[in-house]
C-alpha cells in the first residue's frame, strides 16, 4: 500500500449508479463533503441500461410509498438538473390479454387507490379509445397517469455532476476493493485507480454497488443476498410520434416507450432466468423483443431495430431493495438489491440516505428494507 496516497472523507459512497449519485447529490446539497467511488463512469451499469420507466403502479405494497415520494423528487429534478434528464409524466399502461390478468390488475387497483395512488381500470373499449396504437388482443388495462419515464443515460450523470459542482469529490475509474473496520466502526475504504491503490479514511460508507455489492460487503463479513440477472433492451430507428405512455404486457413479456427523440425502446417485462454477469445480448432474446414488440404495437411491424444492449439486474430473494444499516457495524449503510426498481426509486433512496446521515434518521420508514429480514 502506498501510504503517500491517503485522503479523508466524512462520507464515502461506493457506486456511481443512480442511487449513489442521488445520495451524493442530496448530501452535497446539505453541505456534506462526500467522496464517490465509481469503478467505471457514472451511470454505466443498470442505471444507464434500463427501460427508463418511472412507475408507481403495480409495485409491491412495501415500496409503493417510496415510489410515490420518488415521483415528487423526479419532478423537482427535471426542473433543476443539467443536462435535461427528459423526465415526463406520460402515464403507464399495464395490459391484460386474459381475464385472470385483468382481475389481478383490478384487485391491485383497489389497494393502490386505498394507498392514495390514483389509477384507472380501462375496459377493452376504453383501451381502444385511449391507446389506439395497441394491438386488439388486449382485454383491458390499468392506467396510472402520474407515472412516466426519463432518459437513463442522463440521470445518474446529471446527479453526479451536480453533486460535483456542490463540492462532492467524484472519482470515476476508481474501484473500492476493501472496507476496513476497527472494533465495530468503519474506518477506511481501500480503492485503486490508474495510479494504483490508496486509502480513504472515513467513518461512514454508503454502499450502493448494485449486483457487485455482495463481493465487497464480504470484506466486512457481511452477506448480502443479491444475485445478478440479465436484462436486455432494443431500440428502433426514429418513428413518428406514436404514444406518450410507458406500456407493458406481462403476457407478451415486453414493455415499450417512445423516447423524446422518437425512437421506441423495447424491453423484457419478465426476468430472464439464470444468474449471470454476462452482458452480451442473447440472439434469442433479441428475437423475443422483436416478436413481442410487433405483437403489442402493430405499427412496429414496419420498423427496424437499430441497437440492443444488456444490463445486469440486482435481484433479492423477495424482489425489493435493501436500504439498511448492518447490525454490529457502525458507519455502514447498504442501498442495493433494487431488483429492477432502482431507476424509479433512486432519487428517494438517495434522499433518505442523506437524511439518515444528516438528521440521524430518514423521514420515511425503511423498516421493510432491512437486511436483517433475510437473516431469520
Amino acid at each position, binding site marked *: 500500500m502506498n501510504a503517500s496516497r491517503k485522503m479523508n472523507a466524512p462520507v464515502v459512497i461506493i457506486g456511481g449508479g443512480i442511487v449513489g449519485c442521488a445520495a451524493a447529490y442530496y448530501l452535497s446539497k446539505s453541505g456534506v463533503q462526500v467522496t464517490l467511488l465509481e469503478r467505471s463512469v457514472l451511470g454505466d451499469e443498470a442505471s444507464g441500461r434500463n427501460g427508463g420507466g418511472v412507475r408507481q403502479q403495480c409495485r409491491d405494497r412495501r415500496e409503493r410509498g417510496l415510489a410515490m415520494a420518488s415521483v415528487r423528487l423526479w419532478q423537482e429534478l427535471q426542473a433543476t438538473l443539467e443536462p435535461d434528464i427528459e423526465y415526463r409524466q406520460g402515464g403507464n399502461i399495464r395490459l391484460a390479454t386474459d381475464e385472470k390478468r385483468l382481475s389481478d390488475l383490478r384487485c391491485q387497483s383497489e389497494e393502490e387507490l386505498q394507498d392514495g395512488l390514483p389509477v384507472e381500470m380501462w375496459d377493452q373499449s376504453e383501451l381502444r379509445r385511449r391507446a389506439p396504437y395497441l394491438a386488439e388482443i388486449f382485454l383491458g388495462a390499468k392506467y396510472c397517469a402520474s407515472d412516466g419515464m426519463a432518459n437513463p443515460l442522463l440521470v445518474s450523470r446529471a446527479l453526479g455532476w451536480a453533486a460535483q459542482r456542490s463540492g462532492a469529490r467524484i472519482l470515476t475509474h476508481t474501484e473500492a476493493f476493501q472496507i476496513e473496520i476497527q472494533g465495530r466502526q468503519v474506518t477506511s475504504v481501500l480503492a485503486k485507480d490508474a495510479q494504483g491503490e490508496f486509502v480513504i479514511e472515513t467513518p461512514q460508507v454508503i454502499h450502493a454497488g448494485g449486483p457487485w455489492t455482495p463481493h465487497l460487503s464480504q470484506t466486512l463479513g457481511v452477506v448480502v443476498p443479491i444475485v445478478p440477472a440479465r436484462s436486455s433492451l432494443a431500440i428502433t430507428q426514429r418513428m413518428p410520434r406514436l404514444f406518450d405512455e410507458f406500456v407493458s404486457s406481462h403476457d407478451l413479456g415486453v414493455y415499450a416507450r417512445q423516447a423524446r427523440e422518437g425512437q421506441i425502446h423495447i424491453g423484457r417485462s419478465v426476468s430472464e432466468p439464470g444468474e449471470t454477469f454476462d452482458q452480451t445480448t442473447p440472439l434469442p432474446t433479441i428475437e*423475443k423483443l422483436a416478436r413481442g414488440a410487433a405483437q403489442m404495437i402493430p405499427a412496429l411491424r414496419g*420498423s427496424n*431495430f437499430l441497437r440492443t444492449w444488456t444490463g445486469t439486474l440486482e435481484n433479492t430473494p423477495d424482489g425489493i431493495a435493501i436500504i439498511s444499516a448492518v447490525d454490529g457495524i457502525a458507519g455502514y449503510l447498504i442501498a442495493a438489491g433494487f431488483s429492477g426498481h432502482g431507476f424509479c426509486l433512486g432519487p428517494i433512496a438517495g434522499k433518505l440516505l442523506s437524511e439518515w446521515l444528516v438528521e440521524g434518521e430518514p423521514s420515511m420508514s425503511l423498516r421493510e428494507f432491512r437486511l436483517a429480514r433475510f437473516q431469520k
Partner: protein
Amino acid sequence: MIEPVEIVVVGAGPGGLSAALAAAHAGAQVTLIDSNRQPGGQYFRQPANELHGEPSRHQREGQALWQQVQSAGVRFWAETTVWGATTEKILSLNGKDVPGTIQAQAIVLATGTFERTSAFPGWTLPGVMTAGAAQTLLKEQRILPGKKILLVGTGPLQLVLAAELVRAGAQVVAVLEGAPIFRNGARHLSALWRQWERIAEGANSWLTLASHRIPYRMGWGIVSASGNQQVERATIARLDDTWRPVAGSEEQIACDTILLGYGFIPFHALAQWLGAIMTWQPELGGDIPVRDSNMQTSVPGIYAVGDGAGVGGAALALVEGEIAGIAAAAQTGHQTGRAAQRIRSLAPALAREQQFQKMYAALFTPGAGLYALGNNETILCRCEEITLAQVRRAIALGATTIKEIKSITRVGMGDCQGRMCSHLIANVIARETGQSVNQVGMLRPRPPLFPTPITAIARTPSEQMEVAHP
C-alpha cells in the same frame, strides 16, 4: 431452428472469394454471404446485371474468380446481411430465402472496410461524398458523381479513380494528396519490388491525368466546402507534416463534387462479437483482430482476412483469403496433411504483399490535422446532427469518455450506428482532454449490425404477428 453449416465466409470481395475457393477446392462445403446484390466487393465491383457492356480489367478478373468459385460448388447467399453473432459461431441472417440462424464449424470474416472521413466545414453538403461512392457509381451504375470534381485524400487509389473519372468524361479540377510522399517515399522504394502491376496502373493513371493537365498536388488538403444547398466551391490549403493547413496558403476551387479518399476503417464488429481479441493499429485502419499465420483470430475456427482485418489492398486479401480457406478446410477435416505445406508455399507472396502494406501505411496514414478542421458549428455526427460545440459542451459538463459524450450529445446513436463518426469523435475527445485516441476508445458495436426489420429479427412475417400469446 439453427441450420448447421460447415464453413461460412462473410463477404464476397477478393479475400472472401479467395477463401471460399481455397476451402471448396480442399473439399469443404462452403457458404458465401454478401450483403450486395453481386459478388466482388468494392475492388471487383461489377456493373449492375442489367447494364451490359465491356467490363474493366478488375471486373474481368473478378468475373474469372467468381466463375471458379461457382464451379467449385460454393453456395452463395446474396443480399444477405449478418446482423448478429455469438461466440458459439452462431450467425443471425437477414436475407431472402436464407435461414434466420446458422451455426458454422469455421467462419472466415472478409467483411472489408468503410471509408474514413474528415469533418470539415461544409462536409455534409450534397456533392461531398466518399471516393467509394463515386467508384460505385462509376463501376456499377455507369454514372458520374458530378461535373466538376475535386478529389481530396491520400493514396494511389485517388489517382486511379481520378483517371477513371477523366476517361469517363468528367472534369477533374484537381487531385489533392495529403501526404508529403516525396519527403517520405524514398526509403520505402524496396517495397515496390515486384509490384509491376501496381506501378503500371499508377503510371497509366498518372499519364491520363497529365495528358488532361489535371493538377496533382502533394501535401495539399481540403479546408472547407461551401455552397447554397450543395457544393459550389472548396477551400484548399497546403498541409504541414501533421496535416494541419498552413495559414495563408488557402486557395479557392470551384467544383460541384468533392470526393473524400482518406483511407479505410476495418469493419470489425463481427470479429468482436465472435469473441476475437482486438488490437488497436491506427496505421492499418484502427481496431483489428489479432491473428496467427493461418489468419486465425484468437478464437479457434474464426479467421479474418483482407482489409477488414487490417487495410492492405486486394492483392494481400487474395493471399490471406487463400491461406484462411486452406486452414479452415483443414480444421473441418479436409486435406489436413497438405495444409501446412500449401500455406508455407504462399509465404513469399504474403511477405511481398505485407511489405507493400507497410509502405502504404507509412506513406498514406493521415495525420492528426485531418481531425482538426472543424469549427464549433461543424457537424461531427451526420445522423444526429451533433456539432463540435455540443461535444465541447459535454466535455465541459464533466464527460471525458466516448460513452459519456455519446449519452449526453447523442453522437453515434443514429442510423449509421456510429460508423461514420466514431473515429471523428474519438479524435476530438483525445485532443480536447489530452488523451490518446486508443485511451478514448471507439463506440462498441451492438447488434444488429445494421438497422434490421423487426419482422426479419422475429423471423415472423407481419401477417403472422396476430397471435395473442407468445
